[in-house]
């Protein structure tokens, strides 16, 4: 596999590529996102208009991929054929970084959504082993994302301990979803700042931020269907202060507004990034504002 396509740098504020945004986004000439994120399962091996749109965007923007169906923590063997196709897709489109969810997405069939793992030693070793396998097969390090969860299957430890153990045992990177930390802190009653402060800075590949749905006082659903709320902006600002200026992607999947509204949220991200950049915690970042991501083992 060629490695040179992975060396592009990522910085600033990115936006997830969605079918419903393509028409308006294609004509955009100013205030463009700094990078894009593509769900490979929604775009791979397609022809016609989808293929042309995808090529248009990956030619113009540094692109990260955020997978859905790898089933990293799942009970069935990894799908080697699918992983091979993913690698091919990454090469074809010069994908800078690949992230997946720290969860599982089915039993012996795909359910196309995220089921929370129990926070146990068994789940740590099972999932870490599989993340390592994926990294070996792809020939690159991957990032795993902390997911929102609405129920906590019986386990032995807290989410934070589980997440940190995976990062170290799997030797992988972290896609830190700041909105998910907020959602989980409400759903499961923990301190979101303490959680973020206790994560290893040097493992953070990039950040996610998104809107959500407050269903009940103690239940937030991570819908990606609304504006980012103020407490999440505050938590993002805190994250920059704590871990430095990090490339940050805005996720929006439902109730897509006019593109301008999303671009104005990217502007908010950039403002916080600049402000956070004055903090001393930024010191580990190489000169300049960009962070090199997902370097290969070799």
């Amino acid at each position, binding site marked *: 596999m060629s490695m040179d396509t992975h060396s592009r740098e990522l910085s600033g504020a990115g936006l997830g590529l969605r079918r419903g945004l393509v028409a308006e986004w294609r004509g955009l000439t100013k205030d463009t996102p700094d990078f894009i994120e593509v769900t490979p*399962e*929604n775009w*791979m*091996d*397609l*022809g*016609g*208009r*989808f*293929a*042309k749109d995808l090529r248009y965007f990956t030619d113009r923007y540094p692109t990260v991929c955020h997978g*859905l*169906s*790898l089933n990293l*923590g*799942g*009970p069935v*063997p990894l*799908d080697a054929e*699918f992983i091979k196709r993913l690698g091919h897709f990454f090469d074809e489109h010069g994908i800078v970084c690949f992230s997946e969810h720290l969860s*599982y997405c*089915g*039993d*012996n*069939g*795909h*359910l*196309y*959504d995220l*089921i929370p793992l*129990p926070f*146990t030693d*068994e*789940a740590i070793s*099972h999932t870490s082993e599989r993340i390592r396998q994926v990294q070996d097969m792809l020939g690159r390090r991957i990032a795993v994302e902390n997911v929102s969860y*609405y*129920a*906590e*299957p*019986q*386990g032995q430890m807290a989410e934070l301990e589980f997440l940190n153990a995976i990062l170290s045992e799997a030797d992988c990177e972290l896609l830190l979803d700041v909105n998910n930390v907020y959602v989980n802190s409400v759903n499961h009653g923990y301190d979101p700042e303490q959680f973020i402060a206790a994560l290893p800075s040097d493992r953070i590949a990039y950040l996610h931020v998104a809107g959500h749905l407050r*269903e009940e006082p103690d*239940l937030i*659903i991570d819908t990606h269907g609304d504006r980012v709320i103020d407490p999440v902006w505050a938590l993002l600002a805190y994250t920059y202060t704590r871990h430095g200026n990090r490339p940050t992607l805005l996720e929006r999947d439902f109730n897509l507004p006019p593109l301008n509204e999303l671009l104005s949220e990217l502007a908010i991200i950039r403002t916080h990034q600049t402000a956070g950049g004055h903090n001393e915690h930024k010191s580990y970042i190489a000169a300049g504002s960009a962070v090199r991501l997902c370097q290969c083992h070799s």
Partner: protein
Amino acid sequence: MSTKVTSLQAAQYAFANAIRDPGNHLPPAGVSAQRLAVYHELFFNNFRNSLESAYPVLHDVVEPSLWEELVSGFFREHRCHTPEFPRMPREFLDWLTLPRDTQEQEPAFLPQLALWEWTELEVLLDPAIPMRPLRIDADLLDSQPVLVPSLRLHRFDYPVHRIAPGYLPDAALSEPVHLAAYRNAQDEAAFLELSPVSAALLQNIQENHDMTGAEHIDQLASLMGHPRPEQLFTFAAAFLDELRDKGVLLGGCTSTDNGDRNHV
């Protein structure tokens, strides 16, 4: 590979089973019935939305309660194998081939309508590109006609392309209807209703890449035992040109550059 089920795997199957069918499976320890319901609803709605956008006519013409039973039966019983969510609705067709509780109350055209609706979508997704060098302006009688790779040919016992809430055929047609779907040059899905002769010609072209347009027509005439082959020839030659105008035929390939790349 070990077939021993670990306690983690057991807990995962228990959780997934309960999400698929909360009425018949208890959630794993630590998960309340209330939160299980949240998961069930999220996952099920995701399946339902996807099936409703893939099968809009089917969704429109069957009773809402039947639709609900079909979607929940599929969600509960089927195990999807494609990692690509846009292709998930295709697996609904596989599930429809199996016996199920609702069959008695389903309209007989249901599986065929579903196949047609998926075909309309499939031609938009198809990644295939022509494998043979072709000339757009080639003489289609002297060269080997090259079809658009997204072309799908189907024969139906019901006029599935006309089914709508106001038109629900309950008996099969006396003669089957031949339909073609493909992606045109504007990247839109396009359709043709074909006569049996036209359908046979297209199918022959799809299956035999090394024959010229003239050879295809000759073969068809002798298969049909056509009394006036020259009449068929005139008709078929004009039909080939029409297919090119519509984007069903991309052009012609001459045998010298056919090489061994012909692996479509």
